[in-house]
């Protein structure tokens, strides 16, 4: 009798011991499974073409897209009443249209807001390119007191009070709520923000009539002047760094008061990285004015003129500028079947 009880006690005690020890073990690494990235050869091509059209659709988990869309528009995720969509309204070009971003407590930040459209195909994000993925960008923006002014614990707290979110997260991720899931959901939504069917893309796909002669001439100039050497790939940019002002700076900025103009240098502290910024994508460029990191170019002609001057040390003729501008206008695509 005593021994029986002892055996039962031992087994009962051994079970939690097993359990605890099991969970102390190194967890199975989630293999080499690919992240939810669209930076794959399937979309980015083999590099043989200078530019290639946006895919008509991207393959993503629609549940994550749906959940991400909700979170993208949810102001409760921030500590200042902002939502992602505050600065990146998807119904007007994916950016706020301001020269400089808004910041917590009113006023302007030091940077122009880049569009959120097609960012999934960017290997570099933000003007400085310090974010190498949308997740990284999100991590930064949530914790940035000037932008979302929040933190992950706060965000998770906010989400866990909403039963719909909790249920959705549980259904999709089958695991306890984690910040990675929130980032993944929002990033997945952002990857779905693709604007296909621009005139240019249709032209690339073989529709010769999609571009006007003027635009075609603009595209030719775009190539002849070498713009395309940076503004290449699926997004016509967004995947490399370049010095803003190879020959000269338009307006020599006072880097002491606005160190931001130093670009990459702020991070690498290498002299060669001074004024080095990410090359922005030219997709939907016509609807995302103003331009440049500091929003200093109010319209396309101005921006084209500045680019020729700083990067090529030349002055384009009015005709050339107009032609290039008309080409850039053909880069505006559709989101959810609607032209931006």
């Amino acid at each position, binding site marked *: *009798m005593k*021994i*029986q009880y*002892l*055996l039962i*006690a*031992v*087994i009962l*005690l*051994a079970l939690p*011991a*097993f359990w605890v*020890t*099991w969970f102390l*073990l*190194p*967890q*199975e*690494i989630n*293999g*080499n499974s*690919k992240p939810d*990235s669209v*930076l*794959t*050869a399937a979309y*980015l*091509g*083999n*590099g*043989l*073409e*200078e*530019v*290639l059209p946006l895919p008509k659709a991207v393959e993503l988990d629609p549940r994550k897209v749906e959940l991400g869309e909700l979170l993208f528009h949810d102001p409760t995720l921030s500590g200042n009443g902002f939502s992602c969509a505050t600065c990146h309204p998807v119904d007007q070009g994916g950016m706020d249209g301001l020269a400089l971003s808004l910041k917590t407590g009113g006023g302007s930040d030091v940077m122009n807001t880049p569009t959120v459209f097609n960012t999934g195909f960017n*290997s570099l994000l933000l003007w400085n390119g310090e974010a*190498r993925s949308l997740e990284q960008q999100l991590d930064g923006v949530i914790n940035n007191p000037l932008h979302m002014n929040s933190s992950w614990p706060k965000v998770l707290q906010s989400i866990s009070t909403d039963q719909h979110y909790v249920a959705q997260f549980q259904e999709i991720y089958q695991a306890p709520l984690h910040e990675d899931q929130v980032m993944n959901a929002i990033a997945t939504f952002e990857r779905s923000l693709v604007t296909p069917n621009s005139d240019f893309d249709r032209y690339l796909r073989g529709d010769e009539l999609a571009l006007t002669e003027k635009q075609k001439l603009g595209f030719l100039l775009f*190539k*002849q*002047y*070498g*713009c*395309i*050497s*940076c503004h*290449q*790939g*699926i997004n016509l940019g967004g*995947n*490399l*760094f*370049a*010095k803003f002002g*190879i*020959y000269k700076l338009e307006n020599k900025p006072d880097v002491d008061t606005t160190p931001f103009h130093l670009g990459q240098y702020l991070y690498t502290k290498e002299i060669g990285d001074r004024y*080095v910024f990410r090359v922005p994508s030219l997709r939907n460029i016509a609807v995302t004015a103003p331009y440049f990191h500091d929003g200093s170019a109010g319209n396309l002609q101005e921006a084209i003129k500045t680019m020729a001057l700083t*990067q*090529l*040390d*030349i002055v384009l003729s009015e005709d050339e500028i107009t032609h290039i501008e008309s080409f850039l206008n053909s880069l505006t695509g559709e989101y959810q079947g609607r032209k931006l």
Partner: protein
Amino acid sequence: MKPRLLLHLFTGLLLAVVLLFLFLKSQVDERRLHNTSISLLSLVEYDQELKLQMIELKNGYHKNYGGLVVLQTNIEHQLDHLTKTNEAGLLAPESVKRLGNLKNLFRIRLETAEHFKRKNALIRNALLFFPKAIANLKQDILTSEELSPSIQTDMENRLNELNSMMFMFHSQVEADIDRVNFEVEIFREYFESELPLQFHSNLNIIITNARHILNYPYRSSQSLKSPGTIELARRMLQYENAHFLTLEKNALTYRYLLFAVSMLILFYLLFVFLKLQKATESLKKSLHELEFHKDAIDEHSIVSITDAEGKILYANDKFCDITQYSRDEIIGKSHNMINSGIHDKDFYGNLWKTIRSGKIWHGIFANQARDGSIHWVESTILPRLNEQGKPYQFIGIRTDITAQKIAEEQSRLLARFPAESPDPVMRLDREGRLIYANASSQTILDHWKISLGEHLPQAWLAISHRVLLANNREDHELVIDDRHYSILFTPIPEADYVNVYGSNITKVKQAERDLSHQATHDPLTGLKNRVAFERALEVALKGAQQEGRHGILLYIDLDQFKIVNDTCGHVAGDELLRQIGHKFQDLIRDSDTLARLGGDEFGIILNNCGEDHGERISNKILYTLDQFRFLWGDKSFEIGASIGLVDITSDSDSGINLLGQADIACYAAKDKGRNRLQIYQTDSEFEQRRDEMRWASLIPRALAENRFELYAQLIKPLKADAGDKPHYEMLIRLNPESGETVPPGAFIPAAERYGLMHTLDIWVISEAIERIGHFNAENPRNPIHIAINLSGATLGNRSVASFISDQMERSLLDPRFITFEITETCAISNLTAAIQFITEMKKLGCYFSLDDFGSGLSSFSYLKNLPVDYLKIDGSFVRDILEDPIDEAMVRSINQIGHVMNIKTIAEFVESSEIEDRLVDMDIDFVQGFGIERPRPLSELLNDKKRPLQLKVSN
């Protein structure tokens, strides 16, 4: 106990952890190696591809950075994966050391790639823009008016040359950069000197771009160099493989260990299981045994368990049975509920004190059942102690000893039984010593002069020894003074002692003596009775037969005793018998025997004498009686006796015969006129009497053989005008076996003497009533009246009246056709019965006739009491009426008295017509006799009576 339990628990936990540890160590996930290897291999592959991509980009074969971006992303991903793997501790130790290095190298690689892109873009821009810039300058030159056409052409050629030189340079892998630099410097110097100043900006653009192009190969080849990433990754791969092999080797060892530990545990469990099973078995056995014990106790004893307060927790069936409470009624109740109240407070106090102190209590007490009945139990109460040694339960085991108690009480009372016995009770040991004597024995002990523990007197001692030896009871008598004692020696061999029961039998002895006197004496007269007399007669007969001593037997019958008895009552009769007994006693010797033989008969045996002495004594008796007057009240009676004498000789055959002979002689004396002696003689007269006695014995047989026959004799009315009807007296005759009719005188006396008259009467009544009833029914116009004789015996029988009426009813005979004849003596001796009978029958319509009037006591006073219709004057008066004037006067006066009393008279024995005439003169109403008509068979009469009717019919 507790530390041991903890030890067990700790051991169990330790075992569990060890098992888990072994289990985890005993397997290596191949995927782990696979994952890491894939990562490392991928990195190598990506690195190589990266290089390839960059070369192709540099060459212009690839025109966008998408592929590079994909590789960059993939490398980042794999590095992340490796980092995570390392964080999970899944990397080989050698790899871990190098992981940081690997990451740094790849970081550099990626940065290089990034720089490559930047530079490549720049050079590509230069290359792309170069033709346009050349073309622009050409345009400047051609449109310039300052330059001569030859110079213009030369410049154009030079520009074309530069253009092609730059592209050639760019496409060359191993280019002579110094030469090209030199060429470009020559080109610049030439153009700066030759070209007008306004064209210098375009020239500068060309020069700048040319320099961009010239710078690039050097820079880019630097970028293409691998910083050792591939080597490091490959080395790490080797480490991983080696580590995996080590792990696998270890895992095998752990597997063996796991197996060994598991087997050990299995054996231990098996051992425990077997031990457990053994323990279970033994427990089961113990339980079974316990249950058996419990059953045994329950079967035998009353068991209850109470808590410390005496509240009943358990009670077995016997408890319920004896207390008559159901289990539900008593469980939870106080044990006090069955207290009998017999024991005092101290008793229970003592009990509780004992068991509360943890001791066992033994004792006997009485409990009360539900119906109030008391039962006694022998009880043992055991306290059940808790760990502190305090009792918390009590178990009571009791045995019902009520029966024992009762038996004890009974045996206690029983033990007093001999002591209380009024009879002496003693017990002797085997030596004959007195070991017990009750109080009643004192007289005997005094007589024997012994006391307890002493031997019995010698004679009695011998008896004691004898009975014990023979195992046989012996009864002895002891007489002390006038007291008789029965001393019964009863041996009890198994106990080896003798019980002696005395009883005072003085009274029994007395009674015995009294009884033997009563048996042989007549209580009335104090004389010997018939039994003693017959015994004495046998003695006398034996004396005569064997010794020749002759004797005389006298049979005496008093003549007038019946009258005394009838007129003065039995008391008078008894007194008479006593007085006469005394008188007889005085007349005989002591050696003679006098006995009353019954009724008024006495017998005397005279020993050693002859007939003459017998005669003398007889005459003395007759004389004495002659002198004797019995006085009763104012009445005086003369008493006579008839005596029969028989010699007791050697010829006499038996006492019974002698008595019979004496009886016959006595009757003969009576017949001869009473008050006389008759010596028995073996002549014809006595023979005839003896025949009659034989008749008597034959009567029942004759009845059975239907040999009796009814005769009828006419009783003729002398005054036909008076309405007197002729009737016929029914007479009985016996047809003997020989064929001749036997006269009634032959058997009627015998029947009377031997009590057969009643039977005969019944036969006559039923026969006569049936036949006459039948006849009268057939001849209603000519009915026959009959007269039937009734004897005294019949009159005294109460059932006769109803018998007669039944018979008449059945035969439809009108009672008015019947007259019953009763003799005067018979009527008087049964006066009350007679009157009752007569009254009863007269109610039915029967008539009565008083028979033989004048022959007996002839008291007219009786006549007044007897409501008869006819007087039948005794024939002895009628017979001699012609010669004897007294008889004539008697008849006349009887007739007159009869008439006065309104009773018809009948004269019998009318043997001649002369007598009839005289009787007519005397005014007698009826006559009967041979002179009138002889008796004839009834059937004959009936036939005659029928005939005239039949004739009439025939006429």
